[in-house]
């Protein structure tokens, strides 16, 4: 298989506890599928103060993982450090394409790597096919259009992959982890982390939730989100929100879905008091089933939901809780 052609490389991200980020399991699964089509191998790079756990996990998805124990990754901003170590590997072992996540850390790695190695970037892939090179689909203009793009000159570039567009699947056989070196000076300025502030984390990150119950301006306040939470609990889902609800201080930014928040793809999206304006729609329009409860029958959500119940969200929401309890 491999040999003449460069590998399809994944630069992995880790969670605070040292485990592999979910988005990286998705990107690695995609890299393996593309490697099959491109007749090469997939490979991964993990850069962390203690990369062992994440590297072993990543080897469940791709045949080759380079694990770099980098002391500087502890207590400093991660992405530039990781990009510099990855750049050293990619300089000596030229890739066919490099994939990262399209979340905050993945973007930072991709941008830094592009700057270091003078490479083109394609962003926010929702799917990648292989046609003599990566053929990258992106959703643009708030989901109104899907474009397909490629690197123009057959050269290698970097692609950031949107979360929740690939279902992570392990390889049949586990790959090998090799220790990489963290040699050489870091040429880019190191940015210190002087303090970590923990906020009360929600039980389930919304990007990973199978079901999301979300509230908008119509919920009216913090108390209103009590009902949203109750319905989410009854359905075993997570709580989401629109920017209006977050800006009003009713719920933390971590729960925001949309253009300036997170992009999610749950199996069920239940929207309470959400009009479905374009800025919110871009964050949730690919959900499996979309249900809205809204007072206004002409709200934009009625154009793309599977079901819209016209009515007061508190009355319908309470009736829904009763129905769900009756089934339980």
């Amino acid at each position: 298989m491999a040999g003449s052609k460069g590998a399809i490389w994944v630069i992995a991200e880790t969670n605070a506890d040292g485990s592999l980020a979910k988005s990286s399991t998705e990107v690695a699964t995609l890299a393996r599928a593309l490697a099959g089509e491109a007749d090469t191998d997939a490979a991964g790079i993990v850069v962390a103060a203690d990369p062992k756990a994440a590297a072993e996990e990543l080897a469940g998805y791709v045949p080759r993982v380079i694990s770099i124990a980098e002391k500087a990754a502890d207590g400093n901003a991660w992405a530039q450090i990781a990009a510099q170590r990855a750049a050293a590997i990619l300089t000596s072992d030229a890739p066919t394409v490099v994939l990262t996540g399209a979340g905050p850390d993945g973007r930072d790695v991709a941008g830094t790597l592009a700057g270091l190695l003078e490479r083109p970037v394609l962003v926010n892939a929702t799917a990648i096919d292989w046609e003599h090179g990566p053929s990258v689909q992106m959703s643009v203009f708030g989901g109104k259009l899907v474009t397909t793009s490629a690197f123009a000159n057959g050269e290698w570039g970097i692609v950031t992959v949107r979360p929740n567009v690939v279902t992570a699947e392990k390889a049949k056989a586990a790959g090998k982890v090799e220790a990489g070196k963290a040699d050489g000076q870091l040429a880019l300025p190191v940015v210190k982390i002087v303090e970590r502030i923990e906020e009360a984390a929600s039980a389930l990150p919304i990007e990973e939730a199978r079901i999301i119950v979300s509230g908008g301006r119509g919920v009216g306040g913090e108390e209103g989100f009590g009902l949203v939470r109750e319905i989410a609990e009854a359905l075993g889902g997570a709580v989401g929100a629109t920017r209006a609800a977050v800006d009003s201080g009713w719920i933390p930014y971590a729960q925001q879905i949309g253009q300036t928040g997170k992009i999610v793809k749950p199996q069920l999206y239940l929207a309470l008091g959400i009009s479905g304006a374009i800025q919110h729609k871009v964050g949730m329009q690919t959900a499996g089933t979309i249900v809205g409860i809204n007072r206004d029958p002409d709200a934009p959500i009625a154009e793309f939901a599977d079901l819209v119940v016209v009515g007061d969200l508190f009355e319908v929401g309470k009736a829904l809780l009763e129905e769900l309890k009756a089934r339980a």
Partner: protein
Amino acid sequence: MQIVVLTKPVPDPAAAAERLTPDGRLDRAASPAVINGNDEYVLEAALKLVEAHGGEVTLLSMAPPNAVETMRKGLAMGAHRGVLVSDPALVGSDQWSTIQVLAAALGELAYDLVLAGFDTSDGVGGVVGAAIATRLKLPYLSSAAKIEPDPDAGTVRVRRISPTGFDVLEASMPALIVGTQLLGEPRYPSLKGIMAARSKEIVTRSLGDLGLDAGAVGGAASRTKVTGQQKPPARGATQVIRGTPEEGAKAIVELLAARRLI
């Protein structure tokens, strides 16, 4: 403090008229342009910082000549001047060109901070800021919810959004910061601001002015290409229920049960 804010004119998402030309470039004539929404948050942060610490805010854009119109709005909000890099050769530029051009334009400016928005509503890439910082070897601080410079010490602290809360980052200035909506709601231009903006300076720079070669950057040098565009698959028809709350709730539960979601 001298702050440069990177701003991009984008098709107004609210007008919902965005489209591409047949060869895959943004059709700028199809849609009214506005300042990219995420850029307004960092502009607001920049204005508050110079109000507190003194100094000036410069807007920097790479865009067609008519971008002076959108730049005026930023000036009306309170920015002091604009620099517009505009050149016919830049039509069809990819991100790599954008990175080189903005890095070159920054090379001509004096600044303590460069601020950029989280991403743009048209491209949604969010990689240009990191790449520019890398080219210029500037400390790079991203996902900023709060920016606190200490001009006497020559340092800046940024509260970066992390998956579990915030990380407080510290770096020396000059630095490049990518900010988020948590920096705070952008102000509306006042009437006085709009009047004042008319006489504020907008300098236009060509590729030649920046010492860049049109063969090395811009549309002709684009290293990515759009090879196709199609409408996304349509979702099915929407079922609308008008009735009592109980009827609405029943309809939801029936749908969820039919789709094995409960």
